[in-house]
């Protein structure tokens, strides 16, 4: 390794686990209409003892980045102790939270612990729209108040804007707000079914007409980079260096790939990753196995994700219809996306 930027390319080549997403709990104070959590009545959470053992294992495996998520992690009374524990292992820790439950004491702890950044979702700056998505009256005001506190305390914030048909005309105002506040802005029109395959969230996807009108702007805001497809391209590269651990202990190969390969309450994470035939299979899948994609006339514009294909169509290797639609629109518009095409070894 010659520079720190080599870390992830090294990890991909060597299949070194480097980044892990850990779902601390499933309980949440919001009920977002597009959320993939299928049942909030099961309130799973990983105990601090389990997390300590997990952190020890991850440390020994070479993990650098930990993304903690939920549910809503700040519903846990021991959340600051968990953050302290994670940082005591010198991980680079980021938080994905709706920020509605943080307060000045928690912000102080976040700052003192050198948490890398907080990532949150903002659906609109209009209270009616935002609160309609979250299902909680007053949720926007709480978020804005706490985002202001985070800014005052110089904590890095990334605002994620999930575009659904409930808030599809809001992105320009949110971009302006983020620029004003010094926050990073990310957006995505991608939503998927619930974990139990209930397709209800898909009702909130933006329409094809909307994409046709807006995809160039969205691609520009996302700084979209589409990798040139070659036969030796890994199609699920993220599974080579990352994984996702759910609040019930289940281990998935990737945040988007909802396939259980083991459970940390029954086995340690190293053993799960080393002995999973499914993980080994998916890690080594290359572009050459995607028969539909190889003959598709818009594949050069496509950002397919195997995990989403599996959720939406039951087959990791099949065409993802939503991404195909987006790719076709890009292709029809002969958009400037071609300028961003790069040769790479990975898709995701």
């Amino acid at each position, binding site marked *: *390794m010659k520079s720190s930027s080599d870390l992830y390319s090294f990890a991909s080549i060597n299949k070194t686990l480097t980044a892990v997403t850990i779902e601390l709990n499933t309980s949440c104070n919001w009920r977002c209409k597009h959320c993939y959590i299928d049942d909030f009545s099961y309130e799973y959470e990983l105990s601090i003892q389990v997390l300590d053992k997990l952190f020890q294992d991850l440390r020994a495996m*070479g993990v*650098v980045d930990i993304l903690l998520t939920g549910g809503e992690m700040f519903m846990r009374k021991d959340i600051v102790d968990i953050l302290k524990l994670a940082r005591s292992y010198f991980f*680079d820790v980021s938080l994905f939270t709706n920020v509605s439950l943080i307060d000045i004491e928690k912000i102080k702890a976040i700052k003192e612990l*050198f948490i890398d950044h907080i990532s949150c979702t903002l659906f609109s700056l209009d209270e009616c729209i935002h609160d309609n998505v979250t299902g909680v009256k007053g949720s926007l005001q709480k978020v804005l108040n706490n985002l202001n506190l985070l800014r005052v305390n110089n904590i890095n914030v990334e605002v994620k804007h999930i575009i659904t048909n409930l808030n599809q005309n809001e992105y320009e105002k949110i971009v302006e707000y983020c620029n004003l506040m010094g926050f990073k802005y990310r957006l995505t029109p991608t939503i998927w079914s619930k974990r139990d395959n209930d397709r209800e969230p898909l009702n909130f996807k933006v329409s094809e007409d909307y994409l046709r009108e807006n995809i160039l702007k969205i691609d520009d805001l996302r700084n979209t980079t589409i990798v040139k497809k070659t036969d030796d391209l890994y199609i699920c590269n993220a599974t080579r260096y990352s994984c996702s651990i759910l609040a019930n202990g289940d281990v998935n190969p990737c945040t988007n790939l909802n396939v259980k390969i083991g459970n940390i309450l029954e086995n340690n994470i190293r053993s799960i990753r080393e002995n999973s035939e499914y993980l080994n299979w998916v890690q080594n899948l290359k572009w050459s196995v995607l028969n539909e994609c190889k003959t598709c006339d818009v594949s050069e514009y496509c950002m397919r994700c195997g995990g989403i294909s599996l959720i939406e169509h039951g087959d990791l290797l099949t065409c993802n219809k939503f991404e195909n639609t987006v790719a076709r629109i890009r292709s029809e518009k002969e958009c400037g996306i071609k300028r961003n095409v790069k040769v790479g070894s990975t898709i995701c």
Partner: protein
Amino acid sequence: MTGNTRFYFKNHLVWQVEPVSQTAYIMSKKNDASYLFDNAEKDIWLMIYSKCTFDEMIVELNRKYDVLKEQLEKDVKAFLDDVLKEDLIYEIF
């Protein structure tokens, strides 16, 4: 810095040893800077993690590397001074 001095990592660090290359990767969240340590530097870094004193580091490194003890002490002190200056560690006498 004396023979009994121990060193501790600052709480703003992120660090890990890359398992294949065995390079120690250190990132300062306070100064937004990163560092890579190999070979003897990495050994010293891991001995800091193990809470070795300066003298214990010298004994251990003397076993591993064919270098005169005086030179070793000078080199180790220089490295520790550098990382102290970079605010990556602090010392307790």
